């Protein structure tokens, strides 16, 4: 800050100079008495022109920036202050100008008419009120590039009405650009794209949950925490152990798989053997979810952890801006989900998992080792969750102790939409949820976008009560 003052001192003196000459020295003396020792250079009628101004107990500020509508600063223009105190200054190279004013009261700031006309400003003068002690009035910012303060109130902002739909505002503002519809189209593509990427990640997150549901009929509420675990483990890998991302990811998935295995050994296996119902098991998952969440908080605290620090470079693909990690994440997610689907439908073990889900006793009677199938499913599910946690942490730029649980709702929605327990259901459901949520921001406020995704879920279920891929069994 000190350096700023130094740099401006010479330039400003010139403008303030002739003002000094015009003013009576007696007045200066009176003001000095008023203001006390702390403001030796202040004047009653003369506002000090400075480069930068920060309001203090003694001074208020009237300042602004002079720039054309293209945001190019307009340097060297004389700005005149009138009102309780007067002053004059010229705009700096960056278009800024400022007055320190000691008096509370109304001020008028003027720029030359011809400048205003040249740049098409609505008005060449503006009024501000300064009250030094009031935060909202200790600084008066005057901008000529926009409607002046005086008619800001009378002229209802056109922008405000268009604001709800940023795309249209954008179109209106960039009237010089080719066409409004192309901007909307770009926006649409971008949203669609981000919806798809998120949908893929969500699909990867939920596919494990769907596997567990498909095999044991259990809706696992602790699945979100498995996702979180993956992300946090990757964080540990990259940021605490300083391992490369890929290695961290592999370790995270391994840890995830291990937790699945251990969980099945310690909790789900015994519960199954004692034929505890799925509702009860669901409550156990709620308990587990609670324990895990706070375990993460215990070790990692409550803030959001970034897995990678760097910001990837953008890539432009047609109307879409994206970056390599996002593409890679989406690719891995898609490949994994397809892999899991193939596994379920085309391998012996996959069929066995579906058989177990249908009728565990009969599966056992067919020679399937139900326990080991379920164990594999839990392990796989937790590994997939961990993988999705890693990708999620990279794509969403951070993971916190509660990331999983906040996404749980969407996972459930995706799984249900696709059809509970169906392999490709999670993917399709997640894509629908992701795309709907992101596209809906084009028309509704974004804090309600998940409401729209959930509404879609309800609507689809009204038409297809068994989900998109679910099949209905016959009655009777």
């Amino acid at each position, binding site marked *: 800050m000190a350096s700023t003052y130094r740099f401006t001192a010479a330039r400003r003196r010139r403008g303030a100079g002739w003002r000094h000459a015009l003013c009576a020295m007696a007045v200066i003396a009176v003001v000095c008495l008023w203001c006390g020792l702390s403001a030796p250079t202040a004047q009653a009628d003369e506002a000090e022109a400075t480069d930068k101004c920060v309001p203090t107990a003694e001074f208020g500020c009237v300042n602004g920036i002079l720039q054309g509508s293209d945001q190019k600063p307009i340097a060297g223009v004389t700005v005149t202050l009138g009102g309780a105190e007067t002053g004059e200054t010229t705009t700096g190279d960056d278009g800024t100008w400022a007055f320190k004013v000691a008096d509370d009261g109304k001020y008028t700031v003027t720029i030359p008419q011809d400048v205003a006309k040249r740049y098409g400003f609505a008005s060449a003068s503006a009024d501000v009120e300064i009250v030094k002690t009031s935060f909202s009035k200790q600084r008066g910012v005057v901008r000529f590039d926009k409607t002046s303060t005086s008619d800001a109130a009378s002229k209802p902002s056109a922008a405000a009405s268009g604001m709800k739909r940023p795309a249209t505002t954008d179109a209106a503002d960039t009237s010089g650009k080719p066409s409004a519809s192309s901007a909307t189209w770009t926006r649409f593509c971008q949203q669609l794209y981000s919806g798809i990427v998120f949908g893929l990640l969500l699909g990867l997150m939920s596919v494990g949950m769907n596997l567990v*549901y498909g095999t044991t009929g259990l*809706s696992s*509420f602790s699945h979100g925490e498995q996702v979180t675990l993956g992300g946090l483990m990757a964080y540990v890998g990259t940021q605490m152990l300083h391992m490369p991302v890929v290695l961290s990811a592999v370790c995270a998935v391994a840890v995830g798989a291990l937790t699945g295995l251990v969980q099945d050994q310690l*909790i789900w296996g*015994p*519960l199954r053997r*004692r*034929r*505890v*119902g*799925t*509702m*009860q098991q*669901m*409550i*156990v998952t*709620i*308990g*587990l*979810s*609670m*324990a*895990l*969440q*706070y*375990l993460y*908080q*215990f070790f990692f*605290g*409550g803030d959001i952890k970034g897995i990678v620090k760097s910001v990837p470079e953008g890539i432009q693909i047609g109307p879409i801006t994206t970056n390599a990690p996002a593409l890679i994440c989406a690719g891995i997610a898609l490949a994994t989900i397809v892999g899991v689907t193939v596994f379920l439908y085309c391998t012996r073990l996959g069929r066995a998992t579906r058989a177990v889900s249908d009728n565990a006793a009969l599966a056992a009677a067919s020679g399937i080792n139900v326990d080991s199938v379920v164990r594999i499913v839990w392990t796989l599910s937790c590994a997939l969750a961990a993988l999705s946690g890693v990708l999620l942490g990279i794509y969403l730029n951070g993971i916190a102790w509660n990331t999983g649980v906040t996404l749980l*709702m969407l996972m*459930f*929605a995706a799984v*249900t939409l696709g059809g*509970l327990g169906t392999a490709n259901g999670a993917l399709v459901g997640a894509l629908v949820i992701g795309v709907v949520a992101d596209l809906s921001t084009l028309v509704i*406020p974004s*804090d*309600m976008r*998940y*409401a729209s995704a*959930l*509404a879609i*879920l*309800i609507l689809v*279920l*009204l038409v297809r*009560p*068994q*989900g998109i891929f679910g099949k209905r069994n016959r*009655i*009777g």
Partner: protein
Amino acid sequence: MTIVANILGELFAPTTAAYALAAIGLNIHFGMTGLMNMGQAGFMLLGAYGFAITQMHGANLFSSVLFALLLAAVYALLLGIPTLKLGPDYLAMVTLAAAEIVRIVGRSTSMTNITGGSAGIAPQDFTTRFEDLSPLPDGTSTFLIWTYNNNIANSWWLRIVAWVLVALCAFLCWRWFRSPWGRVLKGIREDENAIRSLGKSVTKYKMQALIVGGLFGALAGVVFVLPRSLNPDSLGRTVTFYTWTILLLGGAATIMGPILGSCVLWVLLTAVKETMRVTIPSTVISSNQIEALGWIIVGVALMLLVIFRPQGILGNKKELAFNG
């Protein structure tokens, strides 16, 4: 001593009563009818909104409660007409989604004028009329080891009203459980097509159950917000999950289960957290971590409770044998 008083105080805290009410409602949904309502918090939130908004606009208590109930009933109808055909797991998701939608819309900025948006409704705007109704004198009273204010916020007055409500609802439940109506609901829980083939209108019964349980939920919502403020986020998914936990902890399809479950859960939670606070000095681990550890223990304890008593405290083990 204060710790013991605190812990045991949870036994009859208004929150406990509110959860018990919500769980009784859920018991009618799930325990009796087999409706997997994962959105009990939605009913609670609507009830709370109905009560608080009308109170804010100066309605009298009776009509506020009535309005709260009405709102829940209408919600149940709207929710039920299209969705009661769904299979249990799908219904669960729809109710969960619907409750989230209620919350998201309630807290959205566009609703600020009605619901107060994300800030919700402050207690001074809706609790005074209830507190004024109290016949108790002002000030605090001590009963046995517990000292609470008589009328304000977390008060004796609220405790009395809340538990009278719980008793009333439990009584209704008891009557219903042992009546042919309850039997039909239980039949629907087991196999709705069989019930249909016997000439009973499944949709009608499910709707009745959904509404009745929802009304209890709405009452629970009112009781829940009375000692605090109405904040849409405080009646979110977590509340539903707790309610489920309470129901299954106490034992689904039992009369006293939800009440007992609620008492157990909150006493357990408070007991763990309070003892953690005094037993672990914050020099060992930070207070953040102590509290987090408390939650971990509660989570694990919940798991263990269900693992070792899957049918719930009062539940019938035999029922469990036929896949619950």
